[in-house]
């Protein structure tokens, strides 16, 4: 039973993420920080790879704030434990979280003892859930019609909808009635590509075209469905090996 629970930190302040990572004794709590995201957009895009059990979500983030993210995430990942971090001047906004299935909301700046206390409670909860569902930990309980190959449909659906910034694996899986893991495996099997890689490729190809047309980066970012230009820029560089502006000036000349 001693798998460590996976923790994802979603905060636009790098120092806040780092502080959280550094100051809490995760190991002691039986937890592990497995990923970070600097915005809600980034989180949406990476969460399917990271597969966290617990997410710390800052409220004030650009492009997609913590509340919006929480709304999306609670729908797609009903088991995800969300802990909202908020400064008191966002208090009114944070009150919206009360109607969302948020595990706890905590005031910033963080105090180690408080965070530790909350995490202990989270672990207890997760332990209970795991005990209850351990028997059914089999993969997909869903029946897949054998005669239809869903991959082509999914590819078409993604091609049509990749500009939607909220599109991700979980969403597509839900849309077609598969479990995420099944979809992921099936997709890789049929296309030889990871779903996330496929989606990113689509978007980046489009972005390269936009760069050739001299489109400004932030406009291109929102057009391809990654309206967070910071994350977009990182994705672009990772995909092409060049920064967007370098790519743009290269293509122009």
């Amino acid at each position: 039973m001693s798998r460590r629970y996976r923790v994802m930190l979603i905060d636009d302040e790098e120092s806040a993420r780092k502080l959280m990572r550094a100051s809490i004794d995760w190991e002691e709590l039986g937890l592990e920080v497995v990923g970070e995201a600097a915005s809600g957009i980034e989180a949406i895009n990476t969460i399917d790879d990271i597969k966290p059990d617990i997410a710390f979500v800052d409220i004030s983030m650009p492009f997609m704030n913590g509340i919006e993210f929480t709304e999306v995430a609670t729908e797609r990942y009903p088991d995800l434990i969300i802990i909202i971090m908020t400064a008191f001047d966002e208090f009114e906004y944070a009150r919206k979280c009360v109607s969302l299935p948020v595990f706890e909301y905590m005031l910033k700046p963080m105090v180690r003892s408080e965070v530790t206390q909350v995490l202990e409670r989270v672990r207890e909860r997760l332990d209970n859930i795991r005990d209850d569902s351990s028997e059914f930990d089999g993969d997909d309980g869903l029946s897949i019609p054998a005669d239809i190959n869903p991959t082509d449909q999914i590819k078409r659906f993604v091609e049509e909808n990749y500009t939607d910034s909220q599109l991700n694996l979980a969403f597509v899986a839900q849309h077609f009635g598969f479990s995420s893991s099944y979809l992921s495996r099936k997709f890789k099997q049929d296309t030889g590509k990871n779903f996330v890689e496929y989606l990113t490729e689509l978007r980046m190809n489009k972005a390269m075209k936009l760069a050739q047309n001299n489109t400004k980066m932030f406009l291109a970012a929102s057009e391809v469905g990654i309206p967070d230009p910071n994350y977009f820029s990182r994705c672009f560089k990772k995909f092409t090996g060049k920064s967007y502006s370098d790519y743009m000036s290269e293509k122009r000349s």
Partner: protein
Amino acid sequence: MAAKEHTKRSLSGEKGKTSLSSSLRRMILGIIFIVIVSFLLSVNFITNNERLAYTERNADSLLRTLSSRIASDIENYKELSRIIMTDDKLVTFLRADSESVDIGMINDTRYGVMDILYVTEGVDSVMVLREDMIMMATNRFFYKYDYDVMNEEEWKEDILKAKGRAVVTLNCNGVASRSDNKPVITIGREINDILSQKRTGVMLMNISVDTLAAMLNQLNYDENICILGTDKTFLAGNRELIQYYTDEFLSEKVVSVSHNTENGKVLISGCKVEGLPIVIMNISPYAPEGIPYTVLYVLLLLLSVFIVSAILVAAYIRNNITKPVFDLSKIMDSNKQTGELKQIEKEMKYSELDMLKTSYNSMIDYVKELIGAVIDKEKTVQRMEMRVLQEQIKPHFLYNSIETIGYLALEAGADKVHNALETLGSFYRNFLSKGSREITLSREIAIVKDYLSLQKLRYGDIIEDEYDISDDVKNFIVPKLILQPIVENSIYHGIRIKGEKGTIKITGRLIDSALHLIVRDTGVGMSKEQIEEILNKKRDDSAEDESASFGLWDTIERIRIFCDREDVVRIRSEAGEYTEIELIIYSEGLWKNE
């Protein structure tokens, strides 16, 4: 005091203005007075008139009766004189020649006449004078005769003019008079011979006034009636009435004249007896029988009905106008004094008063609305100011900075710096506390702990803190930041200036459902004067006083307002040893589960 005086004045009305009720009372009393006076005057007038009329009527009928009686009596005597005239002996006496008349004949005649007179009373004497002035007279010795007059023609002119009819005069027309001067009524007539129709003499029949006196006596009129001759000669009755005689009484109609005598008001009435030289006078006092009691009773009844209804009207007005107005004004006044803007709930019976009530109520509503608007405005302004302040503090920026620096410190291995920053962050987080003004005691304690650990960083080991908070008060709701200023005071005005290590101990207990918070420091202590100054400082002084104890006083004042009572703090101290500040916080039912 000033307010009290003002109220007093406004209740009694402005100077120079009378209240409706008093002017009403005066008016009603005035009307009643005027009605009573005019009632009395008219009653007096009516009574006098009625009594006069009554007395006059009585006197009139009395005098008429009497005068007709006298007239009929005299008529009887006239008849008698006619009978005498036809007496044989007299006729013979008158027909006889002058020469043949002798004393014997006269005596015969006298006896004949006297025979007739025996039958009646009252005839004092009968005198018959022949044309040749030979006289036959009964009772002749009681008379004195004036022969000079007798020989003149004048005295019988009237008699002769009457041509045989009887003429009534007094005292024998001056021809004779009784020797005792008693007046007589004389019936005179011309005697004509039956055969020759020639005048043969004149007869004078004297009737004694005693007959009149007897008649009055018989009728019991001795006192109030006086009978006179037209020449004012007293004939019979009450002689004293002569003094009231006036010539007005010579009319045959009854004339009345009022006189005031010592026995009160009297009415003197008089008239002449028709055809006779006789005046009758009557005296009668104003008769009480004349008072028209029925009329008076009716009037009196009307008067009392009027007075009663006037009083009823006054009472009605008082109960239904003046009193409700007073009540209204009292309620309005109590509104003014208490400052509560209450509507008037009391039912008003009449639309006018209801109108007054409604306009007052709507005014109250309007005032409330205005006050509400002012308060709302004030609140908005305060909120804006608060927002601006918070905006300036920019907690988000502050917190992010603290976290960033904290990470830097951690990265550089400066754990202490990270600890300090975390404490600072926690302090500010609790300190700003979502903007709320009231927090749980445990949160308040957390603020103090953070504050003290930060202060310990600054001043090293001179402070030690201890906490003894019982579990039952941890969720007690207190005004935010009541302990921190006191602790701050303890550090700066207690422990630091003492120059040695000091302890601050905070104790929290629930005693009689009030929270007792004791902050004890082992500092220099406070003097009695200082304690007094802090406890007794007035609200108004605070503005200009920026002294050291301001934070402490401000805290006490906030607790007073929160608990809505004055005795919320006790300060015990011993100079050079300790200071103990006890806060007592009463808050009913303000518990919060965290």
